[in-house]
């Protein structure tokens, strides 16, 4: 590339392999007057080369340079790939700050209303389906119970056991200094029944089943399966959501009961091996410290957590937009929202019952 008589001469190829280099070289001609771009010796040009020529046109626009002597093939390529003839897309006028706030408030309001409608639909159809099975797939509640409950047994059991061990071990180290070894049983029993059992189970179920619910519904929506169900004169809430709702309502208290018992068993092992407590005294202490209210509140809480997980999973599943990316996005959002609301609900519950 060289400059002579206000004409910039190019030779060889103008392709993606040398355009970057030429762009650097062009810096030295920046302040020169260039009226022509001579392409006589250019043998090959690609879309990057044409974009480079477009850049030169813009760079030297004060002198409106002209292209000279392009061969037929080079000229055809330039005409095909030049961006100079493209009508620029006028971007939509952006909304001002207050309009954007107003818009997001309206969207927020709409999503809350949608959430309420969905919740009402789920509760209504779940109630109806207890008495009238039509509209639900045969055996679907059992299938869902296996997926949500039975398949989660080992992971919830294992984690609850480890949690019980950790809680007992950490508290034992402190309590044994005061000779209060037996109170480890109290601590484990109360924390597992009131908090750790329901909360741990809810978080695992939210991660396992909540995400599965959201992604299943989202995928069904993306692949038009929800529309197909609708066109078969079926209500998608009744056909898809209600079995999950009923299954999780049955499974969650059972899972929480199991989690609590296994967690206490973990504590018991530490009590026996580390604190020299007898199994009988540990179990007696644990039973005596618990009240009926503790057990009932723990179980009721688990049912509320279950409902939150299903409703949030369904809400995000049904609001999917786009394809695979949208499915991934709503799945993540549903898990985050479920865990958040489980913890918030747990806090509210603690304030109501134990403050």
């Amino acid at each position, binding site marked *: 590339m060289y400059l002579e008589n206000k004409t910039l001469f190019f030779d060889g190829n103008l392709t993606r392999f040398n355009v970057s280099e030429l762009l650097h070289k062009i810096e030295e001609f920046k302040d020169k007057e260039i009226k022509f771009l001579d392409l006589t010796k250019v043998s090959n040009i690609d879309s990057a080369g044409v974009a480079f020529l477009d850049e030169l046109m813009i760079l030297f626009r004060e002198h409106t340079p002209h292209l000279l002597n392009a061969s037929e093939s080079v000229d055809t390529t330039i005409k095909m790939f030049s961006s100079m003839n493209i009508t620029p897309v006028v971007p939509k006028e952006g909304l001002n700050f207050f309009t954007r706030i107003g818009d997001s408030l309206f969207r927020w309001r709409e999503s809350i209303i949608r959430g309420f409608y969905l919740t009402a639909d789920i509760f209504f159809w779940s109630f109806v389906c207890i008495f009238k099975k*039509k*509209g639900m*797939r*045969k055996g679907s509640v059992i299938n869902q119970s296996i997926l949500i409950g039975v398949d989660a047994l080992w992971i919830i059991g294992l984690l609850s056991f480890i949690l019980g061990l950790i809680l007992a071990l950490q508290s034992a180290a402190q309590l044994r200094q005061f000779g209060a070894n037996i109170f480890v049983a109290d601590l484990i029993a109360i924390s597992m029944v009131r908090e750790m059992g329901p909360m741990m189970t809810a978080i695992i179920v939210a991660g396992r089943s909540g995400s599965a619910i959201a992604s*299943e519904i989202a*995928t*069904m929506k993306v*692949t*038009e*399966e929800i*529309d*197909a*169900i*609708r*066109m*078969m*004169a*079926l*209500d998608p809430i009744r056909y898809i959501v209600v079995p999950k709702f009923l299954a999780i309502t049955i499974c969650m208290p059972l899972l929480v009961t199991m989690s609590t018992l296994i967690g206490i068993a973990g504590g018991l092992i530490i009590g026996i091996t580390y604190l020299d407590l007898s199994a009988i005294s540990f179990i007696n202490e644990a039973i005596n410290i618990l009240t009926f209210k503790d057990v009932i509140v723990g179980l009721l809480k688990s049912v509320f957590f279950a409902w939150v997980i299903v409703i949030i999973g369904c809400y995000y599943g049904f609001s999917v937009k786009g394809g695979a990316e949208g499915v991934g996005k709503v799945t993540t959002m549903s898990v985050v929202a479920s865990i958040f609301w489980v913890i918030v609900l747990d806090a509210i519950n603690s304030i109501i019952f134990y403050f």
Partner: protein
Amino acid sequence: MKKPIVEVKDLVAKYGEDTILEDISIDIYPEQVTVIVGGSGCGKTTLIKNIFKLYQPYSGSVRIFGEEITDMDEVEYEQVLKRIGMLFQNGALINSMNLFDNISIPLEQHTNLPLSIIDKIIKVKLNLVNLGDALELNPSELSGGMKKRAALARAIVLDPEILVCDEPSAGLDPLTSASLDELILKLKSLFKMTIIIVSHELASIHRIADRLIFMDNGRVLFTGSLEEAKRSKIPEVETFFRVGKFD
């Protein structure tokens, strides 16, 4: 001509602020194959989904079997839907169920037929679409053409009065596409079904269309027979058939 089985008047569909369908007024007549035709993105599928309330229309009136459906409640509308079958673009078979379970859904949910009868109906319908030996297969084990045929079997399992097919030939080889068209024609003549097809496949349109509704950019530009469409002086219609080298 008989009274229309589907009447659409001044239908408007919007997505946010954008108008997708503008004042659509069309009639679909019974026992005919009506093809809604037009280029990609012109609003054909959106129109179908608005007519059958899969999307809520912004305004306008839709009458199916003589009844206004836009303000119908869910229970009433379900009675209308039981008389309609729909084949979706990608089949939309429920992935977690095998073919038998997929096709049995409408029968199990809307009839009190015993399992032995349901079993026979499903086998007949699957044989009709040449999938008699695929009862136990899952949708993921089927090819694109098989999925569409299976979905067609599901769509016709209740012997609907109206069959809606969204791009039945899209993505299929010419032979499979032709056999699907033949099947659609057979259904029309045997069961006197009203068939609505969304398509832009000219060869398929040529084989099956009794009547065309030509759409462009969210509007209906032409309604009439295939011959009338070919003679049409509307530039978009003319170009569509000319570019497709169709005569």
